[in-house]
C-alpha cells in the first residue's frame, strides 16, 4: 500500500466531523460579529469582519492544538483526532480571510503595492507602539499555507510520515507568531484588549494540557530495563476483550492484545503516522489503529492483503493467568503463535 495510491477513506464519521466544523465556524463567525457590533456600535463592516475572522481563527487554532494532548489524557476523545486536518485547513481559510481583509483594508489604498506596504509600514522592532505586528501575522499565515497545502494524504505519502510530521509541527511556530501578532496588535489598539486576555487564557490552557499529557506519557513509559528476558504485562483477564495493554520495555512500547482466549503482542507504533495501536481495538480480526484506521493482524503484525504494511511482533506466554512478553522485537510481519488462556 505504501507505494500505491490509497484513496481517502470517506465515511459517515468524517462527514459528521466536517458538518460539525462547518456549523461551529459559521456560528463562531456569527457570534463574534454580533459581539463586535454590540460592544462597538461604531464599528464598520470591515472592522466587524476583521475581528470576527480573527477571533474565530484564534479559537479554532486553540481547538486544533488541544486535540493532541486531550486524546492522550482521555482516549474517549480520540474521534476528535480523526479528521483534525480538516479542522486545521478550515482554520487556515478563516485566518487567510482575515489576512486578505487586513491587507485590503489597511494597505491597498496607498501608492505602494499592498505587500510592500505590509512589510514596510513599520520596521521599528524595538518599539511596542510601532512593532510591526502585521509581519508576525503574515509569517504565521506563511507557515499555515505550507501546512494546509501539504495536508492531503498524497503529501503524507510523498514526503514520508516522519518528514510530514516534522513539517506539520510548524504549527507551533505559527502559534508563536500569532501570539506576537495578537499581543502587539492589542497593545497598538488595532485589536481590543479583550483579545489579549483571551489569548493569555489560551496560552495557559494549552501549556497546562501539554504538560499534563507529557506527564502522563512519562508515567506510562516507566520502562523495564533492557536485558530482562520476559516482561510481566499483568493478568490476562485484566485486558478487555479485543483491547490491549501497553507495556514499555527497553525503551519501546509494546501493545499486548487479548482477543477471546488468545494473547498477541505487536509494536505499539502504527506504520502510517506512528499512531498508538495499543489504544485501538480488534475489529473483524484485525487491530485497527485509532488514528486513521490502518489495520494489522495481531498474530503476524501484517496488514491484510492487498496492503503491505507490517509492524514488529513479540513472543508472549501466559503463566498462572499472567501475560509475559519477550521484549526482543521480531521482524515486522513475523507470525507468532498467540499465547492461550486456559478456558
Amino acid at each position, binding site marked *: 500500500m505504501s507505494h500505491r495510491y490509497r*484513496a*481517502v477513506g470517506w465515511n459517515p464519521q468524517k462527514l459528521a466531523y466536517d458538518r460539525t466544523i462547518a456549523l461551529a465556524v459559521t456560528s463562531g463567525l456569527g457570534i463574534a460579529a454580533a459581539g463586535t457590533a454590540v460592544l462597538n456600535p461604531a464599528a464598520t463592516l470591515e472592522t466587524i469582519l476583521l475581528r470576527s475572522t480573527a477571533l474565530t481563527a484564534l479559537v479554532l487554532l486553540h481547538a486544533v492544538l488541544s486535540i493532541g494532548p486531550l486524546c492522550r489524557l482521555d482516549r474517549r476523545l480520540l474521534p476528535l483526532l480523526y479528521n483534525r486536518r480538516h479542522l486545521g485547513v478550515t482554520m487556515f481559510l478563516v485566518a487567510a480571510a482575515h489576512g486578505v481583509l487586513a491587507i485590503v483594508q489597511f494597505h491597498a489604498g496607498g501608492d505602494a*503595492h499592498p505587500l510592500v506596504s505590509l512589510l514596510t509600514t513599520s520596521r521599528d522592532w524595538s518599539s511596542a507602539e510601532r512593532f510591526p505586528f502585521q509581519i508576525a501575522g503574515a509569517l504565521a499565515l506563511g507557515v499555515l*499555507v505550507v501546512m494546509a*497545502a501539504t495536508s*492531503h494524504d498524497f503529501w503524507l505519502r510523498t514526503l514520508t510520515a516522519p518528514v510530514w510530521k516534522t513539517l506539520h509541527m510548524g504549527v507551533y511556530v505559527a502559534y508563536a507568531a500569532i501570539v506576537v501578532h495578537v499581543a502587539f496588535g492589542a497593545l497598538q489598539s488595532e485589536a481590543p484588549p479583550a483579545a489579549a486576555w483571551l489569548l493569555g487564557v489560551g496560552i495557559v490552557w494549552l501549556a497546562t494540557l501539554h504538560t499534563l499529557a507529557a506527564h502522563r506519557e512519562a508515567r506510562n513509559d516507566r520502562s523495564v530495563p533492557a536485558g530482562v528476558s520476559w516482561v510481566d504485562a499483568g493478568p490476562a483477564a485484566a485486558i478487555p476483550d479485543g483491547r490491549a495493554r501497553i507495556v514499555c520495555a527497553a525503551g519501546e512500547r509494546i501493545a499486548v492484545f487479548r482477543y477471546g482466549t488468545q494473547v498477541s503482542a505487536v509494536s505499539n507504533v502504527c506504520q502510517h503516522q506512528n499512531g498508538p495501536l495499543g489504544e485501538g481495538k480488534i475489529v473483524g480480526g484485525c487491530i485497527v489503529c485509532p488514528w486513521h484506521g490502518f489495520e494489522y493482524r495481531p498474530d503476524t503484525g501484517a496488514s491484510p492483503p492487498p496492503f503491505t504494511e507490517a509492524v514488529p511482533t513479540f513472543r508472549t506466554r501466559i503463566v498462572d493467568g499472567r501475560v509475559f512478553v519477550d521484549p526482543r522485537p521480531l521482524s515486522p510481519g513475523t507470525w507468532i503463535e498467540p499465547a492461550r488462556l486456559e478456558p
Partner: protein
Amino acid sequence: MIRPLRRLHRWAALGFWLLVPLLAGAVAGSAAP
C-alpha cells in the same frame, strides 16, 4: 455520494497549490516600479 466528494477533495487539495503562483505573481508585481 462518496465518489464525487473524493474528486472534489482532490481538486480542493490541488487548489491550494494555485496560491503559490498567485503569491509569486503578487510578490513579483510588488517589485515592479
